[in-house]
């Protein structure tokens, strides 16, 4: 089957040799990327090349969206306007209270001498596309390292936590959604203040609470907010609602399924929170007990 070229045609190495060469290059790249994380620079450089192609690929969808925005009907605009006016009225009342409460809170905090909560700065980012990868739940947004976005920053929408920035390119950033497999968010049950860790399952619309004891007080409909003890997510952001609690004595932990509150898959804009929370100081390392002298060990072994 293999074609044997006459020796005067220079064809280079045979396909098998080339396959082995290129396979080893790819495997080396995979190991470097997965285990050693050496290739972020290369990825950044390549992303600059890919960026225009991605913008062109995203153009039809955004043109369609803009066109459909343009052709909204008068009545739908009117109704939306009325709804927004109502909302703003009802919210302005709350806002006035909020101002009062904030000053009062600041005053009380100063009295207590506690650290003031940092006012979080946010950046509005538009979702360019959802990552076309059936294995993971990710979004790519149009703000990158040039807009001061940093990896690790939480991403929220009007309702709750959407995810976390995991990779930053010059003009884009990749957001891992809370529904991504093994994405963890430390949460707090607002009803009773119990802390737990919320993990993504890889399915849209399903999260699970891990390592919760069987007798822990979690009920359907409990609201979970970020606890803030991780130093990544600011405390108090709504994350999810408990949708199903299954207690089976055969297992060590209760099986608690939750529903994300934020429209994890249904938005065009999200907010990136630049919460510069100084991490809590590490406790001083405890003095290590001196290693047991060798002589005794030997002696024991001998005996």
């Amino acid at each position, binding site marked *: 089957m293999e074609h044997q070229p006459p020796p005067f045609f220079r064809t280079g190495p045979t396909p098998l040799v080339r396959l082995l060469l290129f396979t080893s290059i790819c495997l080396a790249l995979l190991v470097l990327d997965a285990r050693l994380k050496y290739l972020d620079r290369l990825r950044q450089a390549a*992303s600059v090349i890919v960026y225009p192609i991605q913008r062109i690929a995203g153009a039809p*969808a955004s043109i369609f969206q803009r066109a459909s925005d343009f052709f909204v009907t008068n009545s739908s605009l009117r109704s939306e306007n009325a709804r927004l006016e109502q909302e703003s009225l009802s919210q302005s009342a709350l806002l006035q209270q909020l101002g009062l409460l904030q000053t009062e809170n600041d005053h009380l905090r100063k009295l207590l001498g506690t650290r003031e909560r940092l006012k979080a700065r946010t950046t509005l980012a538009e979702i360019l596309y959802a990552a076309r990868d059936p*294995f993971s739940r990710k979004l790519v947004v149009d703000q990158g390292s040039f807009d001061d976005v940093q990896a690790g920053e939480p991403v929220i929408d009007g309702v709750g936590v959407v995810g976390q920035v995991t990779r930053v390119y010059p003009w884009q950033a990749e957001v891992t959604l809370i529904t991504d497999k093994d994405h963890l968010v430390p949460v707090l049950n607002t009803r009773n203040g119990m802390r737990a860790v919320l993990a993504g399952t890889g399915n849209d619309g399903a999260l699970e609470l891990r390592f919760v004891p069987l007798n822990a007080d979690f009920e359907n409909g409990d609201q979970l907010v970020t606890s803030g003890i991780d130093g990544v997510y600011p405390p108090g952001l709504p994350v999810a609602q408990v949708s199903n609690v299954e207690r089976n004595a055969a297992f060590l932990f209760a099986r608690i399924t939750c529903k994300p509150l934020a429209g994890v898959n249904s938005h065009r804009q999200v907010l990136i929170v630049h919460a510069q929370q100084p991490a809590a100081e590490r406790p001083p390392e405890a003095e290590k007990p001196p290693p047991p002298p060798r002589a005794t060990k030997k002696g024991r072994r001998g005996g």
Partner: protein
Amino acid sequence: MASLTHQEILLPVKPGFIVFTLIAAALLNMLPWTGWALWFRPDFVALVVLYWVIEQPHRMGFTAALLLGLLMDVADGTLLGQHALAYSILVYGGILFHRRVRLFTPTPQIVHVIPLLLLNDVIVLGIRLMAGADFPGYRYFFGSFVGGALWPFLSALLKLPQRPKPENHV
């Protein structure tokens, strides 16, 4: 079996056209596919790479496959090298079978194309599983069958610029 041995005489393909089709395929891959469409989306880059390897094994080779694979890895934000590895092995399969596949008309060629596309999927899947992902279900392989179904159309489309013009026929 006359139809099986029927071969058209085509004009030589321009290298610029190959580059153009590969970029177009990358664009198609990068369209914002979501939901169920993502499961049915064939890997257009793999499809076009396979087409050119079978038709022009001297023009389309491992280097181009590796570069395209890295491009797709960066665009998808996946591990660098997973698509590159899959496309390299796909090119090898194409080179190995191109003489055999070219004996057939595009429709029976599908039978050869689908296993190669499935192999491509299995390699990506294997790397993802090793990196710690969950098995996404058998619908993951739908895309390869859709790709196979698109093969005759792709083949007709990519042959268009190489068809001799009617004036030259006379």
